[in-house]
């Protein structure tokens, strides 16, 4: 295991495609993307598996491609999950400091974190992430490390992301069936935010929106911590479906029209303009109004942003987003989307690009790969933390690593 522990793979099983990104972490912890594999995904709807056999087949194709490109064997992956069943909320844990001298110990911190994690979930749900935000000591806010402080009441805010246990387990089982190990299950939104945002942007406050094929995930960072997250089971597929319904064309044709003529903001020029659909022999089948096409699409995308904006407003986070909004995912390729998002959110909107990793520029530049790259980054951070936290083990491992020849 020692020899390939520096290879980290991130796997995202999306609604429109499955993609794997392979990264290599050098001794300093820096990350280099060395390979990627992708394949069309056929067995997934709205981010959730509906046909395991097809998914497995597609998954093998993607793995093969990634292994070929990176010239390594992938043994384990960080698996990204999504779906409309995933929800995030903030929970506060309280713990009275009862020791005689009122000094807060590590035990107190462990207890308060435990209290914050003990939440009332529906029985079928399971926690995916519980991210620590800030501590409060006797009501004093914004404390990051309370051990050693004096106080009577210790509180902590946690951001808890949870989802339907069986649906999450389905994906994990699927991946295991291809003889890959799953290192960890990560919410796609968190992975994407990790790939796109710098520490400074997290500190300033940012909203990351990942518009995928079947789902849209969003995550809000403010003051350096995750403040809000969520997933909507609405994505590019919905746009195609709306077009198919509204223009009365088959779904595959709607998909093509979306890519060719789609825009997030209807143009004046397109109003009343028509185009004809022809069959393979060049005969005209149907005339389509481009103005309608653009309006149907714009309405759907606008609604999507509005739903997210509403959610943020309710959470009271709109004023915290000083770094603005970052959009990625396949949906972000729609022309005019930035303009539309700026209209809805009334703030600075940028198309996100994976940062702070080096390697294949083709992968880094594409908005579709942000999540998978984020998963690799998540893995590398976790490795680094593990190495730092268990110094003894780390030391031993270092010794072993030096003793064992590396290939």
């Amino acid at each position, binding site marked *: 295991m020692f020899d390939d522990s520096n290879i980290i793979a991130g796997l995202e099983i999306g609604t429109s495609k499955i993609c794997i990104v392979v990264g290599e972490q050098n001794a300093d912890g820096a990350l280099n993307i060395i390979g990627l594999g992708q394949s069309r995904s056929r067995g997934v709807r709205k981010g959730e598996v509906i046909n395991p056999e097809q998914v497995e087949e597609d998954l093998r194709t993607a793995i093969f491609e990634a292994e070929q490109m990176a010239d390594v064997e992938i043994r384990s992956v960080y698996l990204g999950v999504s779906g409309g069943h995933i929800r995030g909320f903030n929970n506060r844990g309280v713990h009275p400091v009862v020791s005689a001298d009122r000094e807060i110990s590590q035990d107190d911190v462990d207890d308060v974190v435990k209290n914050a994690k003990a939440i009332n979930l529906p029985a079928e749900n399971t926690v995916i992430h519980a991210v620590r935000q800030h501590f409060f000591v006797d009501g004093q806010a914004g404390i990051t490390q309370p051990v050693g402080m004096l106080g009577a009441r210790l509180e902590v805010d946690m951001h808890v992301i949870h989802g339907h246990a069986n649906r999450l387990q389905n994906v994990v089982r699927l991946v295991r069936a291809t003889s890959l190990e799953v290192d960890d299950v990560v919410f796609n939104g968190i992975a994407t935010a990790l790939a796109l945002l710098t520490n400074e942007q997290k500190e300033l406050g940012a909203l990351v929106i990942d518009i995928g094929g079947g789902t849209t995930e969003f995550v809000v960072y403010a003051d350096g911590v995750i403040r809000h997250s969520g997933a909507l089971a609405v994505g590019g597929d919905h746009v195609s479906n709306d077009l198919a319904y509204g223009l009365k064309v088959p779904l595959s044709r709607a998909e093509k029209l979306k890519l060719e003529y789609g825009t997030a903001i209807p143009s004046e020029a397109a109003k009343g303009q028509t185009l004809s659909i022809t069959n393979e022999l060049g005969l005209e089948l149907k005339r389509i109004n481009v103005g309608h096409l653009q309006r149907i699409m714009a309405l759907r995308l606008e*609604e999507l942003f509005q739903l997210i904006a509403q959610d943020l407003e309710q959470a009271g986070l709109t004023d915290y987003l000083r770094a603005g909004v970052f959009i990625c995912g396949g949906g972000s390729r729609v022309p005019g989307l930035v303009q539309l998002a700026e209209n809805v959110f009334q703030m600075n909107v940028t198309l996100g690009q994976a940062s702070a990793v080096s390697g294949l520029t083709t992968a880094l530049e594409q908005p579709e790969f942000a999540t998978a790259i984020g998963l690799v980054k998540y893995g590398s951070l976790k490795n680094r933390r593990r190495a730092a936290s268990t110094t003894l083990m780390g030391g031993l491992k270092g010794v072993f690593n030096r003793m064992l020849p590396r290939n």
Partner: protein
Amino acid sequence: MNLENQNPLLETSETSGKPTVRIIAVGNAGDALLSGLAAHDFAGAEFVAINTDAVALADTTAKVKIHLENKLFRGLGSGGDPDRTKAMAEEQFSTLKSACAGANVVFILAGLGGGAGSGISPVLAKAAHEAGALVLAFVTLPFECEGNRREAQAQVALESLKTAADGVICLPSQKTFKLIDENSTLVETFRVTGGFLIEGVRGVWSLLTRSGLIQVHFSDLCALIRDRHAENAFAFVEASGPGRAREVTEKILNHPLLDEGRALAESDAVLVSLTAGKDLTMAEINRVMEQVKRQCVHAQIIMGAAADGALKEKLCVTIIAAKQNVVPPSVAPRADHRSPATMVSAQREPALSRTRKRGAVAKAVQGQLPLSIVSKGRFDKSEPTLHRGEDLDIPTFIRRGVALN
């Protein structure tokens, strides 16, 4: 009808200076609770059992038994219909009232959801109230698996009980699932669920009757719950050994029935009763009360402490947190599973879900009029994406009524 049995009962009630407590069990669940109670020491309490089922009634240990009868039932029970039993109880209102006469406090024990408990309890509460007693109802709500009908009946009964009784201490049985080992048997499960209620009864009981170091007067209890028509959360914890004060505090703050202490923060009146062996120290009381006080900033706190030689090393704390029945409108629609449902909101849910459902139904009817069926194309067979009552799978331009052309 055993009216003649009640006369000796009435005479004994005025003898001591302590409040007369009458514990009235309603229905089969109530009878079961009553036999659970009988295992404990309730010297001076008077037990009454009311049921429609003659066989079950015969089995109870209560001194006074009232059999509500109707020719239709042939003494076999109510057939799970609360409307019938309610009508019957109202018919015999005077009987119920005289059963409560002379008592200062009436505890009603019942399991809501069935026929007898749901139908009779509210009427009985009203009768007891009219007889001049303070009415405290201890009720259980059915398990989710018992079905929607029972659930709905229980909620209706709970609402009417809340308006009729001075205080309702309610235990949703589903909540106790978390406290019970998965492998425990059915009998054990019922014993544990009933045990919680019995502990509550015992806690209030000992508050009222045991001579304490710091006495809680009957009037204090009245002041706390009288006319509040409140929903109450309660917990009973105990610990022993040198660190018992600390342990008890932690148990209170983590108690699932208090929603890990959140119920305390939301309450506006809290009653704390501590009982321990003769070695109870002021420092221990102080330590527990300090944390409780910190938890409930807005609440009026009533505390009592009593020493009981029988408890030896143990320290027992009973907490009853009452919350006024007002729902801030802004909170209401958010009480879905996203926010951890508190015990109080778990009780409130029926009203909410009813309103929510009404909204949803209205929408659904609009979208599914037979003349305008909207095909969802690709998403026809998948689970609908519902967001605030809207099906997001239906094209936006249709939902917004944007006309093309």
